[in-house]
């Protein structure tokens, strides 16, 4: 590839970076007595580029992966700049003000504590 071709290709990459493909991240969802826990694979996403929202019982995850090595020639491309997007409706009653999210090594962990009213309660039987 000559320099002009590389420059054109890089322009395409820059445009793709703006657009990006849409991908559904793979998730694990687990539930314990006290919380619902969600893990999502978001490889290549920095913590500043992920948005986690909880609204009307719906959890939405949106992460952006930008192009890397824009100044180099592409030799093999199996993934593109990406918008990771997925949302979930939670049937459990969640304490929205105590939701915690952490992005570490490309894995987003969201912990959704159950509202007190939704926790299982053992009822003492008198008699």
């Amino acid at each position: 590839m000559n320099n002009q071709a590389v420059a054109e290709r890089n322009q395409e990459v820059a445009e793709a970076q703006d657009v990006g493909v849409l991908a559904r991240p793979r998730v694990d969802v687990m539930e314990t007595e006290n919380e619902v826990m969600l893990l999502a694979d978001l490889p290549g996403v920095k913590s500043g580029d992920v948005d986690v929202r909880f609204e009307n019982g719906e959890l939405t995850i949106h992460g952006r992966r930008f192009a890397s090595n824009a100044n180099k020639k592409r030799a093999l491309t199996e993934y593109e700049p990406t918008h990771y997007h997925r949302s979930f409706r939670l049937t459990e009653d969640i304490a929205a003000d105590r939701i915690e999210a952490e992005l570490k090594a490309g894995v987003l962990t969201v912990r959704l504590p159950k509202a007190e009213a939704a926790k299982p309660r053992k009822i003492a039987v008198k008699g």
Partner: protein
Amino acid sequence: MFINPKVFNTLWREMEGFRHEFDRALGRNGQSYGAATPALNVWEDDAAFHLETDLPGVAADSVDVTVTEGNRVTVTGERKAAEPANAVWHRQERFAGTFTRELALPAPVDADKVEARFEHGVLKLTLPKSEAAKPRKIAIKAE
């Protein structure tokens, strides 16, 4: 039947390209490979190949990178499943287990100088080309 290897390679590349286009159109974004064979991107400049592969949640000490025959790069390792105590699983889509991916680079690399690092769940390798494979500018003598 005799197939000219050059023609075969071209055809193969076109087939691969078509498959990637198809995957992209479906929004699978390389995931059709499954995490047992993680997706790769490779860039090239005069000095080196720059390889990146998605290994989210994989610990650095559970990955092995090897270079054999001068140009074959192999990335192997394992990702452990999350094991929270007393939890009920609702969905399990994330890959757990061993993975391996191998790639033959188009030119030999200097295996002693390969550098590897993790960034945001992406393994990034810099594989310097061997001296013989680097482009060389030939000075033309004036008459």
